[in-house]
């Protein structure tokens, strides 16, 4: 899990959670099959095309808008391994930590279809198609610890013991 390789799906700035999964899909009966609905209003072809381990590459403020935790969960269900973006919206960031979706805050130059390698502990994103590299700083210690423990619920369970 330290190094992740995947194909890039390119997005712009301010991708909101309504785009990731629309509100009308947010009913409990869909919780197990949310991958079917990702980006259905903006890029309907994506749900079937995203492969296991693929990487979403975006600009600023990825995941803005609603607090729906369905957004990172649906991307995990679709097989997305990691999201690399210039910046993330706050609630989406926290939700992703808790459900185990890897987020990397880094400005990366890559085209759709490029192959990226994300070296989490090395703090580097490598574009294997263009051979460019990009550095990112590590998370603060508290957050590294939270992720290492497996998210908030795992941390609470551990503290209960």
């Amino acid at each position: 899990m330290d190094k992740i390789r995947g194909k890039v799906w390119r997005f712009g700035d301010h991708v909101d959670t309504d785009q990731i999964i629309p509100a009308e899909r947010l009913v409990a009966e869909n919780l197990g099959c949310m991958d079917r609905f990702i980006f259905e209003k903006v890029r309907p072809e994506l749900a079937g095309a995203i492969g296991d381990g693929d990487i979403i590459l975006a600009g600023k403020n990825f995941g803005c808008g609603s607090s729906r935790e369905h957004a990172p969960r649906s991307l995990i269900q679709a097989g997305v391994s990691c999201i690399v973006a210039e910046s993330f919206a706050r609630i989406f960031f926290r939700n992703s930590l808790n459900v185990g979706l890897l987020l990397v805050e880094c400005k990366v130059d890559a085209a759709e279809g490029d192959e990226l390698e994300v070296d989490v502990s090395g703090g580097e994103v490598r574009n294997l198609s263009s051979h460019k590299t990009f550095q990112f700083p590590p998370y603060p210690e508290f957050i590294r610890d939270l992720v290492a423990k497996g998210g908030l619920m795992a941390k609470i369970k551990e503290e209960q013991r």
Partner: protein
Amino acid sequence: MNRPKTIAEKILSQKSGVDAYAGQIVEAEVDYVMVNDVTGPIAFREFEKLGMEAERDRIVLIPDHYVPNKDIASAEQAKEMRDFARRHDIRNYFEVGRTGVCHQLMIDEGFAAPGRLIIGADSHTCTYGGLGAFSTGVGSTEAAAAFATGRLWFKVPESIKVELHGAFRPHVGGKDLIIRIITDIGVDGATYKAFEFCGPGVANVPVADRLTIANMAIEAGGKAGIFPCDHLTVEHIKDTVKGDYQPVSADDGAEYCQVLRYDLSQLEPMVAFPHLPENGRLVKDADVVIDQAWLGSCTNGRIEDMRIAAAVIKGRQVHPGVRFLVVPASPRVFRQMLEEGLMQVFMDAGAYISGPTCGACLGGHMGILAKGERCVSSTNRNFIGRMGHKESEVYLAGPAVVAASAVAGRIVRPEDL
């Protein structure tokens, strides 16, 4: 030690027992944790996996997004919340008839109050900053954690000081100010930060407008939008607030990462064009024909908003090409509208009035847009497909502009009628 603090730093210090400043991560005790029918089910599953006792007096369960049940799937979902409340003996569950848009209900039922720390699995939980609370949106898993422990971790945010001067002109209000601010700083202009409002103009901003402004702090990426507590706040909550509360004010000399200044008297009616709240323009420069006008939501579904809209539409008729939907945000607002004769005003004008629900604000039900349709809406988001078809359009504005536009059939100011 004891360096001066912002309101955010003070509340998070008090609730964590740590002398905390911007950038620090603290674990703090929350006064209330709220979930709605959409975010609840994930929280219920996560909480029950823990096998812990519920912190039942802190938990507030409010069905609002898809109730009254829209279809079978939402009926099952609403039932999950009802069953969870029974299973864990949670008193603060609000059944249809007593429920409303969660943030308005949190105020009407007296959970929101100055100095409190409140989290909710709904991004607009920041609304209660209008009363001087530190309140913020979280995910379902975080809400579940607080169900079990009554606590959550917070990174103490830096604060942007927003200094207000002057007073609003007629037909201008909180919605116009917050659209102006978001347009100025962008939809990520306050990411990870809190707004703190201050200055002599605050006293001229009615509490309902403060709630509208705080509500949309999230649309600039903000974690909170906090007003100081003053006599208007105390007056606003005195009949409804539960328990004691401790107002918190900022210290002189507290550190802010940015200062913004606004003269309220210089503001004009604003409208945010699709598909981001930062696309604010002056209403007088807009030339947009509409199919629907929607008045309601946690942003502008309060009695004050209903009065403003009713005053504009009284004696006039909704344009034949427009559906005007009026959705009071809570039973209390609904009842006040009845008592004040506002229902009569809206019905005489040809508006449709419904009971409280989030409904069409998020594209749920009760007013979904068809392909190519345009809606001027008193809500908070105009994202792609937010209220329906991906090729429909949402224009965000305040209650006076929504009502005037319903009459004109295009987006206008009341003075243009």
